[in-house]
């Protein structure tokens, strides 16, 4: 029965990635290689972040919100953005359209993030007899993360790969990219500083991810119109 629960939470956490890959044209254009490369870049980025965090961050005794530490964490979080830039621009992709490139990179990125951050707790925790809602909430968080990663990848590809953008939209693009990139700091502030409970935080993440996805979709299609 507890393996059953683990199985449920696993398909909630990792199912959407597989569904996304198979449902969108990504599967037809065989962009699996791109996704795998993006996942490897994410691993490398995570290692670099880990080293920086270990070097620069102090472990605080209480679980409160320390602005200085959080600022440091946010700065280190920008390494994420650098990694995404690397994945989008430097990796040699086969001839796939930009539309699909950012989706593939975002998908690979989100999948690596889910596996790294959520698989181990799931395996250790969800198989126990005790029932908690935590793992289901974690799965929902993984879904929100997928949407956010794809939005970030879309905005990133707009910033770095598209040369001719309408001038008016550039500040909006940068602003949205900034918000999505600092999402981890925002959620940690909500959890520690304001003391929100986990379900509330996950709800907030889902909501903002949908909003940001919608905005980036609009921006992307707005930028696409001049070139077509």
């Amino acid at each position, binding site marked *: *029965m*507890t*393996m*059953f*629960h*683990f*199985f*449920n939470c696993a*398909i*909630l956490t990792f*199912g*959407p990635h597989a*569904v*996304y890959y*198979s*449902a*969108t*044209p990504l599967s037809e254009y065989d962009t699996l290689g791109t996704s795998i490369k993006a996942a490897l870049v994410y691993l490398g980025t995570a290692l670099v972040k880990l080293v920086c965090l270990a070097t620069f961050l102090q472990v605080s005794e209480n679980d409160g919100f320390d602005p200085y530490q959080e600022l440091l964490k946010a700065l280190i979080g920008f390494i994420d953005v650098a990694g995404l830039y690397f994945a989008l621009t430097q990796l040699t992709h086969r001839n796939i359209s930009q539309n699909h490139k950012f989706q593939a990179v975002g998908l690979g990125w989100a999948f690596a993030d889910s596996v790294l951050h959520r698989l181990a707790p799931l395996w*250790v*925790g969800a*198989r*126990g*007899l*005790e*029932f908690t809602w935590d793992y*289901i909430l974690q799965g929902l968080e993984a879904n929100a993360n997928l949407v956010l990663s794809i939005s970030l990848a879309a905005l990133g590809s707009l910033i770095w790969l598209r040369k001719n953008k309408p001038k008016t939209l550039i500040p909006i693009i940068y602003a949205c990219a900034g918000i999505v990139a600092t999402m981890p700091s925002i959620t940690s502030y909500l959890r520690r500083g304001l003391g929100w409970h986990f379900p509330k935080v996950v709800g907030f993440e889902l909501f903002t991810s949908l909003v940001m996805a919608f905005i980036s979709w609009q921006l992307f299609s707005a930028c696409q119109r001049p070139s077509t």
Partner: protein
Amino acid sequence: MATSKKSSELLESMYSVIALLFILVACVELCDAAAAVDVYRLIQYDMSGSPFGSRFAALNHHAASSRFPPGADLSRTVLIIPLRELNITFVREYITQKKPLGGLLFLLPEVLSFKHGGNKQVPEKEKMKKLLAELERLLVHSNIPYPVYFAFENDEIDTVLADIKKNDAMGQPATATTGGYKLVIPTAEPKKVASPTITNIQGWLSGLKADGDANQLPTIAIVASYDTFGAAPALSVGSDSNGSGIVALLEIARLFSLLYSNPKTRGRYNLLFGLTSGGPYNYNGTQKWLRSFDQRLRESIDYAICLNSIGSWDNELWIHVSKPPENAYIKQIFEGFSNVAEELDLKVGLKHKKINISNPRVAWEHEQFSRLRVTAATLSELSVAPELFEGTGGLFDGRQYVNETAIIRGVKLIAESLARHIYGHQGKNVQLFADESSLAVNPAYIRSWLDLLSQTPRVAPFLSKNDPFVMALKKELADHADEVNVQHENLEGIFTFYDSTSARLNIHQVASVTFDLLLLLVLGSYLIVLFCFLVITTRGVDELISLFRRPPSRKVKTA
């Protein structure tokens, strides 16, 4: 839509098959429980081959409260019964009619715990004492084929119990399909305690031998048994039975060692202090101790006073004897005690109980002396001889049920009576151990030893040879006596005990199988909806329809 329904059903059944496969795979049980509680097991023993007590230790069942719906099958559930809701007839019915049950968990009020209860007052003392005594009597003398545990109430368990009661009231006892709470105690099968030892400690204070006197000085023995027996051996601290006796013996030893330290005040009697074990088992230890004596020593014993439960009396103590009251020695002892009692403003009564040699039951410690023709009496607050395993320090015999003042008065009584006999002051109104004198009874000493005893469970089979408590008793007696001897014996063969007296209970809140299936259904439909949504937004509705109509469209193409 019909075809999409069929395919979703197909996907569903696939999911269920995979899920079933996973269920069959053995999974490791992890201990992240809703609550973890210390629990203490009912004693398990064999007497002359017949099994008694709870025969199992491991537990892995769902929990139910006493308000379970009537007619429910309880063979795989554990009943949690707090003491305040205990219905003894209900439990007796279950046990005597051997109704199938997964387990029993009794919740005792926290004030009775010697770890957390402290010295708080127990509400409705007498009622609780009676109830616990009855429960203990029922459990100790029955053969129960499922685990029985005791635990102390705390906030966590109370919330869990309230939750269980709510579920039961709705008519849903916890089973595998309806969720609820699961109680898990992962211990091994209880094993026999190999050759349980009983340890007797004796202390000897030599009297003053006059020069040129070859005869052995007479001896007076003061004996108390220090081990206990109760329904929960890990909780049997026996503050009154017989912690009060031990404390009184130690204090008397201390007072007389003060007197005997100076040759001018040393009496012409030897004093023999005996801390015996094996009390609940027909005073087996006392018997072995006496048998180990030299014949001359045994004959030199003038009389022996055995102490048994002198901690919670108000105004009356009893002297129990087995020789008829007309006997000269008995008369002398009784008069000595009565005179002192009058002065101390308390009453002493005499009770005579004949020994039946053919009956193996030994109710009082002095009977073991009498069987070897040594004059002896037991001083006790109990007026009736206790039954087997009764009055041996059970669940209710904690610190709250014992009264220091009673012990102090008892010590004064015994010490004065002994002193008058030793120094020949019978009938004279002399107070040797007056308050404020250097020989006053020390309340702090009594209190500290009583507190220690009230936190030490002392069931003999579970006390090893070099148990720290036994060593502490030996050391204390060595401080007061000239010579201390320790005798290790094996407990009588008709008793066999089993270990595993305490464990840790994990209470898990489990979700039912229906919940998991429901969740699977929801997730499956979510993924399918996500799939369709993505196909529609990225490739168009036609693609979605074409996915499910591929075979016909191919036929059209080739044709």
